[in-house]
């Protein structure tokens, strides 16, 4: 990509917004807090990774993934399983039963596929459902006692399998692999049919992954949440910084109190870490886009029939790009959990993690990686700020009304809901009037 002053100006404008957010005095628009500004930046960087993943699917290949939230959630499982300390005794209590249950499930599916391929139609019609039902009952019989045993171990503090106790950065690629696995299952069934089917199937898998995380307490404690996920390597804990005399002295020389200095340091280190991941990803995706592979993907997106006539296997390519994109979403999910330091399955909301990401990609410019990144930062900034702007705007709108009137109270109370409305409106307006987004594809 050649230097494009318009794009540089757009990114500079975005940076300026974040700087103003931190540096300006507290006023109606900006909070004037570096803490808020860096908080927005960090989640914005993760959202940018997520938007890159969605852009790989939508921008490169025209695949509509309506279950991004599921891939984010399954990626978020990785830090729990990789980085948390093991729950002593849990594995010996139910590990073998659990492994047997999963083995039974795999064997059942494999047997069913085998019979379905080999046997005659009459045998198939009876045998396949019987195998599936029998296998499912066997799985349940093995699974139930095993999970009960695991959940009984150290229930108050853990009650789950626990993790491997490895560094949390290792969990990021693992999250990507988890998401890729889920994407393979969905893509294998829903791709190659009409394009709406993928949207509907992904909507389903998204809800299912989230409900699994909510309900399977042996896995990640369900709605009990997992707290205290270890920090990645260079990021210290605030409390350690505050107790270090050296750090306190240096903070004082910059004119900061130790508490805010420590939170800022932690956030900055996170930003650096996420920025590295984002830059590597942008470099990779840009390389991929300009490679023969990228040309092929665009050719398929723009004219499937012609690409198929040139000997390209459309369904296989779609599956490949769908898995790649989902893996990036999984990576972002793992990063998100690392930043939060806790796993709260209740927070996986499709509006926030699927459709907001879509708005980011479309506003930024689908098909353009830099566009997705810019869209992610900008929309995340607006989405966060709308929380304080909405009520202020509503207060301004209603300032002429009589105090205590029911309409005024209702309007003030529903300012929070206007966020959704605004997001929908932005999506529709951009889709209609500027479908190529802020930074269009070439």
């Amino acid at each position, binding site marked *: 990509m050649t230097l494009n002053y318009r794009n540089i100006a757009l990114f500079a404008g975005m940076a300026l917004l974040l700087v103003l957010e931190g540096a300006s005095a507290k006023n109606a628009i900006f909070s004037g807090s570096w803490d808020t500004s860096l908080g927005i930046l960090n989640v914005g960087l993760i959202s940018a990774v997520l938007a890159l993943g969605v852009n790989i699917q939508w921008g490169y290949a*025209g695949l*509509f993934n*309506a279950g991004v939230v599921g891939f984010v959630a399954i990626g978020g499982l990785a830090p729990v399983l990789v980085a948390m300390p093991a729950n002593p005794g849990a594995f010996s209590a139910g590990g073998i039963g659990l492994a047997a249950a999963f083995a039974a499930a795999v064997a059942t599916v494999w047997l069913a596929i085998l019979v379905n391929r080999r046997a005659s139609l009459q045998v198939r019609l009876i045998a396949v459902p019987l195998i599936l039902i029998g296998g*499912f009952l066997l799985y*349940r019989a093995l699974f*139930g006692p095993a999970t009960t045993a695991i959940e009984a171990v150290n229930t108050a503090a853990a009650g789950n399998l626990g993790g491997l106790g490895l560094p949390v950065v290792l969990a990021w690629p693992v999250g990507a692999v988890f998401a890729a696995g889920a994407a393979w299952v969905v893509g294998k*069934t*829903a791709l190659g*049919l*009409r*394009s*709406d*089917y993928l*949207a*509907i*199937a992904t*909507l*389903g*898998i998204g*809800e*299912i992954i989230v*409900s*699994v995380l*909510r*309900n399977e307490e042996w896995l990640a404690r369900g709605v009990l949440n997992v707290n205290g996920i270890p920090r990645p390597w260079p990021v210290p804990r605030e409390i350690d910084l505050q107790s270090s005399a050296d750090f306190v002295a240096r903070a004082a020389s910059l004119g900061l109190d130790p508490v805010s200095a420590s939170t800022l340091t932690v956030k900055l280190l996170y930003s650096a870490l996420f920025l590295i991941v984002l830059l590597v990803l942008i470099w990779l995706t840009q390389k991929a886009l300009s490679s023969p592979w990228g040309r092929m993907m665009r050719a398929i997106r723009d004219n499937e029939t012609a690409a198929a006539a040139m000997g390209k296997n459309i369904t296989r390519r779609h599956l490949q790009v769908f898995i790649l994109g989902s893996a990036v979403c999984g990576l972002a999910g793992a990063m998100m959990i690392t930043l939060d330091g806790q796993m709260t399955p209740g927070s996986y909301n*499709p*509006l926030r993690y699927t*459709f907001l990401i*879509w708005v980011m990609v*479309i506003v930024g410019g689908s098909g353009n990686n830099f566009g997705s990144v810019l869209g992610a930062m900008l929309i995340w900034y607006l989405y966060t700020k709308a929380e304080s702007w909405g009520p202020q705007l509503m207060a301004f709108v209603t300032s002429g009304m009589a105090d205590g009137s029911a309409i005024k109270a209702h309007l003030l*109370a*529903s300012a929070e*809901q*206007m*966020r*959704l*409305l*605004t*997001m*929908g*409106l932005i*999506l*529709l307006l951009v*889709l*209609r009037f500027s479908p190529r987004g802020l930074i269009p594809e070439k």
Partner: protein
Amino acid sequence: MDFLNAIVALLNFVIIPASAYGAQLALGALGVTLIYGILRFSNFAHGDTMAFGTAITILVTWGLQALGVSISPLPTALLALPFGILATAALVLGTDRAVYRFYRKKKSDPIILVMASVGVMFMMNGITRFVIGVRDIQFDDGVRFVINAREFRAATGLAEGLALRSTQVITLVTAVLVVWALFWFLGRTRTGKSMRAFSDNEDLALLSGINPERVVAVTWIIAAALATIAGTLFGLDKSFKAFNYFQLLLPIFAAAIVGGLGNPLGAIAGGFVIAFSEVAVTFDFRKVVAYLVPGDWTPDGPIQLLSTEYKFAVSFTILIIVLLFRPTGIFRGKST
């Protein structure tokens, strides 16, 4: 006696609730399938159209209740339903004008329309929340039971009670009437026939002088009516909460695809297939089995294939199976 008890338990916990739920899903899926047949895209905003229609119906219900209007023993919401339908029809017609028509004229890819419907979904969701809030709302004010469990036990002497809620009866009766009216309309009237012609072959229909904008407008009005009725019945039967309607989207899509997208008969069958599977798979059959086998044979744990939290997994699994083996659905809808 035990055998009768088992049947009553099955009726009470599986067959009756699943029938009512199935009728609600069928009405929802009919709307989705009609839009798909005529406008050729999956309308993600359908769940929120249902929520909006229900919200307006609830508001009018409250208004009527405040005026002292009542059609007891039936719930007041039934009287408010036409107002809800009118408001929803106006909303979706406006949406079509402002959003979908542009892409239709441009002959955009269906997936662009799907995406636009996601934007519409956001907006409708916002409007619904704005109008009525996010609380859980009970608005059923009619007589609660047709058959009361306690009275049933007293009258029959069975250990198992049978409860038939009036909302369930209303759901089934309304659904039958609506489906009958819809099929009469599609099969007998000129407009209905032109809709079917348009769905079967757009070019041929245009050649024979069918006005596409009129067909589209009628489709939206019918879809709005179906959505409002389905949403109100669902709300009467359970309760109204905006987010639940978003979650209904998956079973509704599954029902429409199982039956074959674009096929109205299929949508109804699909609705019941999904509802019965969902209820049967997540029901704990322990009680029923206990009546049928000798006392000490009954297992200790629940006899349940999946816990109720996973009811979405049921519609999803059925969806996947259909996509794998028969992507056009049971009744051969459109697949391309």
